[in-house]
């Protein structure tokens, strides 16, 4: 991975300024930077450009791709900044503290500039041990802040760079305590959030070093930026796959109340980060799900879905709702009772998401609906008679594949009764007939044609419902009209045996020799 960084292309700074060689190298850079950029963009880590007290460079000034020369210069400046820090740390005389802070500040500025800060150069020059020293107890706040800020940005990049923070972790965690000044604690939380965002291994280290309780307590504070940073860091810390951290978090005294309070009242930016905490609580911990379902959480989530138009907020709120519905049958059976106001509210906001322009919202809203449609007959009737169905039918024919698949689950679930003990659910003829008459069959047959096994399976299962359940034996005729036989016959040479058997079975049963004779 190190080879991809701009740094390694800067072996010949002399040549880079003139002619086609330079152009070629810049183009080469563009490709690798493209890939590296993409990876850096989807990381769960965040660079800090503006400090908790508001100081820092205006973002966007160094946006353009780091050219050979600029990058080389930045690396050189960084190395010398680390050297300066080294001597400042060693210096014992008058004005030592100011010297240290100045050196730290200079390093911090260099690490906060471009999209790809000179982390490698900093590490090579030996920044970490120096920064750890600057974190020692009793150090002045300004020093702690700048050191934590440097560490934050060192940890915001590649895996091996983040891992370099290991020696600093105990100190960073220690400075989260109530005794620390809030800006310092916040900056340490940010650094830890980046470390937690790296992966399971580092998460486990942090958890075993006791990072969770102080971060959780930070969420109980009043300052918005503190809560936001702590919430974000926690969302990285508890994301598992081990559910223990999530369960531990919900048990922290006052945490549930804080979550509900912020979901109810806070600005969208803060509510977004809190919602992500709820996402992970509800996805991982059954205990947390139970606690949340019994609280006002669902009402608050619905309220946010109804009133907000910020995609950033809607995604985690919708997903939290989805996790609460999916994770606990209790949710649909005791909270979302058909006929109750809250249930109508849920359907309404899900419809709003179906109408949105955003792919993620349409897909995940369909998923939530499919789980509600997996409830009782009353639930199915509720959805069937709602505004959702015409929207779903349209999505089934026009939306991108991943949305169509979820929509298929909703529609199919509407057509069968809840699974009883005997395993063969009955059809809800009224729903099936109506949906087929409104043209959903071709959408399902398209799924049969896809290369996705799950989708094909769904399509074949729905076809079976149609073949079996349409009155007057209309099923086979309808399927034939939509080229369903053709779609099924493709499976004769398909590598998946289950699908082959399903398709062949249907063709044999419904399109055998006697097909169409008794008309």
């Amino acid at each position: 991975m190190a080879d991809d960084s701009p740094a390694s292309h800067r072996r010949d700074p002399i040549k880079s300024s003139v002619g086609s060689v330079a152009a070629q190298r810049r183009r080469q850079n563009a490709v690798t930077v493209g890939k590296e950029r993409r990876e850096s963009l989807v990381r769960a880590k965040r660079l800090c450009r503006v400090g908790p007290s508001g100081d820092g460079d205006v973002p966007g000034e160094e946006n353009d791709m780091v050219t050979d020369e600029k990058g080389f210069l930045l690396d050189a400046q960084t190395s010398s900044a680390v050297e300066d820090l080294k001597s400042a740390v060693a210096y014992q005389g008058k004005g030592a503290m100011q010297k240290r802070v100045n050196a730290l500040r200079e390093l911090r500025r260099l690490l906060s500039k471009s999209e790809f800060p000179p982390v490698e150069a900093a590490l090579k020059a030996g920044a970490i041990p120096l920064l750890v020293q600057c974190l020692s107890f009793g150090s002045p706040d300004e020093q702690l802040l700048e050191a934590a800020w440097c560490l934050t940005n060192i940890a915001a990049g590649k895996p091996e760079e983040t891992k370099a923070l290991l020696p600093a972790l105990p100190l960073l965690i220690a400075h989260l305590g109530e005794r620390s000044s809030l800006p310092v604690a916040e900056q340490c939380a940010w650094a830890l959030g980046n470390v937690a965002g790296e992966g399971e291994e580092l998460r486990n280290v942090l958890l075993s070093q006791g990072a969770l309780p102080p971060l959780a307590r930070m969420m109980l504070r009043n300052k918005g930026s503190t809560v936001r940073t702590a919430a974000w860091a926690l969302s990285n810390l508890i994301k598992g796959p081990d559910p223990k951290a999530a369960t531990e978090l919900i048990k922290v005294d006052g945490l549930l109340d804080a979550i509900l309070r912020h979901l109810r009242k806070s600005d969208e930016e803060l509510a977004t980060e809190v919602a992500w905490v709820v996402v992970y609580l509800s996805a991982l911990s059954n205990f947390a799900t139970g606690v949340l379902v019994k609280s006002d959480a669902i009402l608050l989530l619905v309220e946010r879905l109804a009133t907000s138009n910020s995609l950033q907020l809607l995604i985690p709120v919708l997903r939290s709702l989805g996790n609460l519905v999916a994770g606990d049958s209790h949710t649909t059976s005791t909270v979302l009772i058909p006929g109750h106001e809250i249930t109508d509210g849920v359907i309404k906001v899900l419809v709003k998401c179906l109408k949105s322009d955003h792919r993620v919202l349409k897909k995940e809203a369909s998923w939530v609906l499919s789980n509600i449609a997996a409830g009782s007959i009353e639930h199915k009737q509720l959805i069937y008679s709602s505004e959702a169905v015409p929207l779903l039918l349209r999505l089934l024919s026009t939306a991108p594949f991943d949305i169509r698949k979820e929509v298929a689950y909703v529609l199919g679930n509407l057509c069968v009764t809840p699974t009883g003990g005997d395993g063969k659910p009955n059809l809800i003829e009224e729903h099936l007939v109506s949906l087929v008459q409104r043209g959903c069959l071709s959408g399902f047959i398209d799924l049969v044609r896809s290369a996705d096994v799950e989708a094909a399976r769904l399509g074949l299962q729905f076809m079976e419902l149609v073949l079996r359940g349409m009155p007057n034996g209309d099923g086979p005729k309808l399927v034939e009209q939509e080229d369903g036989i053709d779609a099924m016959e493709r499976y004769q040479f398909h590598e998946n045996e289950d699908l082959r058997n399903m398709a062949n079975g249907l063709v044999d049963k419904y399109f055998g020799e006697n097909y169409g004779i008794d008309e």
Partner: protein
Amino acid sequence: MAMVVDYKHDSSFPYWTSIRRRFAPDSPFFSSGNIERELLAKQVALDFTEDERNQLEKMIDTDARGVFCPIVGCGARLTLLEDFEDHYNTRHTASCSVCSRVYPTSRLLSIHVSEAHDSFFQAKVARGYAMYECLVEGCDLKFKNYKGRQQHLVDKHKFPTSFEFFKKAHPSKKQRLKNQRKRAVNKKDEEVSSKMEVENEMMEGLVSAVSKLSTSDSSPSTVSFGRRNARGLTFVPRSVQPPLQKK
């Protein structure tokens, strides 16, 4: 799903059941939402143009959603799921210019043409040569009759018992009625005879099928049979003698 040999008794079709579906937070189901989260969070700082945004999403999509073609023996990698339909129509619809049946590879098509439309082939069969090739590429076994090959496919290569290489084209309703009456009158022996007879009903069906001649056969060919580029009305010698098919 349990493996069942005989599908006709329909005892193990996995019927649609409505169940709740839950996903772990790191499930691929959530990945597009997760990516969206991170992009949105960095958007303010990095100020993407609309164009850049679309490009990024496309790149991420492509990684996540590539798939391999599921047709036996193909293995082609498709960058996007949506590409499958085009790929299928280009590579897996080798169609017979005589009867317009469609096969997923040119090899299978040419096997079909020999077996169904070549009297020379039938002549050799009648004289006892093992002409029916195994359909699985690389197996190379040959059989004296259709049923023997069929049995081999089921026994050795785990093809389903309901598999039919030479599947009857769906005859017209009139024809189906005729068939039914014929079956009622004729309690014939179900065994496949090695003697071939031209069946009028097949002829009728084929004639109507011929009117739907297709010229599409652009499947890649590692084996060339000369028939592959069949375009227009390249009729094979007239004695169309399909093997008797009885279930």
